[in-house]
């Protein structure tokens, strides 16, 4: 295990401390909890946005805490959803009187822990609403099962719901727009290498020297297909064909695109992928309104990337374009 760490047990605490030390103007940490909140939380009269999940997905979620995005990011152990008491503290800390929206990625653990936190908050008289993001088209959808996983598309929910809250939207309005994003966002990823959870010390899965995995999850959950490494263009074609046919996206649609590096994939390769994405969208007569390329929802040092498409209407465009200023997401 080659990692720049001190002790596998302390990675989350040390990371959060480092983050607060680095960005005191943006964020602070709730004493005794692995919760990062806006430096000026609670913002009076504004709907508070709380997201979070297991650690190891940095800059998600604490990196998106700031003006125009989240009010709090709750950090669980690596790849383990945070506990309700932590989430509850976050809710209390960011409630400015207008209620709090919980943005949850669709994992059983996350859903249940956030739900319990919501129950605790309601017992204290805090208005809480929640949305569950499930953008990963690699997983078969079905109302009878857990459904799809939430992955990089979650960042668009943060951005757009964040803009709505910043603009003074009510809890119902912020929730409604978050759900609109969820209905219109689709992602899929692939990996060239696994990653190592510090406490486990060994890879979450193994891949041959010439193999890659398509459709795997951001915690190393097995994917839909394991094959020989393909060319970047072929990989992109495969991912895009799954994504495009899902909603489906139609000629004339406008979209935001995100290429999300999973941790070890160089920026060069992310741009090479986008080059192909852009060509495919042109062929399908789909217009790109905005592009995001970089690391947003990582999986420690996994090599690989995901593609996310968000179908936009005028409302979503306006909110996506709104400025945001956080440690890891800045837009004028």
């Amino acid at each position, binding site marked *: 295990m080659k990692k720049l760490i001190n002790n596998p047990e302390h990675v989350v605490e040390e990371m959060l401390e480092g983050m607060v030390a680095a960005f005191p103007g943006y964020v602070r940490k709730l004493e005794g909890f692995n919760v990062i909140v806006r430096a000026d939380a609670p913002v009076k009269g504004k709907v508070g946005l709380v997201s979070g999940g297991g650690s190891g997905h940095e800059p998600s979620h604490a990196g998106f805490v700031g003006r125009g995005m989240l009010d709090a990011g709750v950090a669980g152990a690596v790849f383990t*959803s945070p*506990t309700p008491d932590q989430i509850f503290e976050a809710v209390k800390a960011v409630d400015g009187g207008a209620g709090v929206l919980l943005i949850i990625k669709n994992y059983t*653990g996350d859903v249940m822990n956030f739900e*319990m936190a919501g129950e605790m908050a309601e017992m204290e008289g805090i208005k809480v609403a929640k949305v569950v993001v499930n953008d990963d088209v690699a*997983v078969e959808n079905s109302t009878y*099962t*857990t459904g799809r996983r939430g992955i990089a598309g979650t960042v668009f929910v943060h951005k757009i719901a964040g803009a709505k809250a910043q603009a003074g939207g009510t809890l119902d309005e912020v929730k409604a727009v978050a759900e609109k994003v969820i209905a219109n966002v689709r992602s899929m990823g692939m990996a060239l290498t696994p990653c190592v959870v510090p406490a486990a010390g060994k890879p*979450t899965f193994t891949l041959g020297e010439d193999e890659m995995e398509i459709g795997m*999850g951001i915690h190393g*959950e097995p994917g839909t297909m394991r094959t020989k490494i393909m060319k970047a263009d072929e990989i992109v074609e495969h991912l895009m064909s799954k994504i495009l046919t899902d909603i489906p996206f139609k000629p004339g649609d406008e979209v935001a695109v995100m290429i999300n590096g999973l941790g070890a994939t160089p920026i060069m390769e992310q741009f090479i992928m986008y080059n192909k994405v852009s060509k495919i969208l042109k062929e399908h007569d789909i217009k790109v309104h905005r592009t995001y390329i970089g690391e947003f929802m990582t999986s420690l040092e996994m090599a690989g990337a995901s593609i996310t498409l968000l179908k936009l209407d005028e409302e979503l465009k306006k909110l996506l374009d709104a400025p945001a200023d956080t440690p890891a997401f800045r837009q004028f």
Partner: protein
Amino acid sequence: MATDAAGLVKILEKVAEKISENREFLTELDSAIGDADHGINMSKGFSAVVEKLHSQKIDDCGAILKTVGMTLVSTVGGASGPLYGTAFMKAGQAVAGKSSLDFQDFVTILEQALEGIKYRGKAQRGEKTIVDSLEPAVDILKDEKDSGDKGLVMEKALNAAKEGVEYTRSIIAKKGRASYLGERSIGHQDPGATSCYLMLQAAIEKIKEMSVNGL
């Protein structure tokens, strides 16, 4: 005729010991169809439980179980934290105020634990979860709670739980992280069903060992 609070703590210590012994095994199971942390999560939680129980002396058995539940909820995380946490909290509610527990209480506790897990996780039997080992055991306990040989009933319940664990090998996961695997989840034993069986096993062993007759 029954166990007091100190006895309950001993039973819980035994459960914690069992989980800790099976830390690697449960993690191994979870690595096949999940994210390789079930043993890590659970033993972290039960270490905290033991520490908590030692740091304060509680006489109320209901309060003890509630403390266990709250500790699990706030230390385990993941799916199993809220599930087992809710289970213990609900069980604690049902025996609140009692300074000793008899066999009927034991049945109530597991019944309520099952209810808690189903409420929180919305799983049915056959979906490859904790429910698959716990429900068969609870069914036997409920059916035979008035039988004379409590020891035998407990054996039968434990056996049912074990069969439930085995059964999880043959089915597709419909809840939890393993459900993303679809058909590929078949052939693997469910970590949560297994940890639940192990906890039952430890509890029943300890109860017998303490020869608490009333139980």
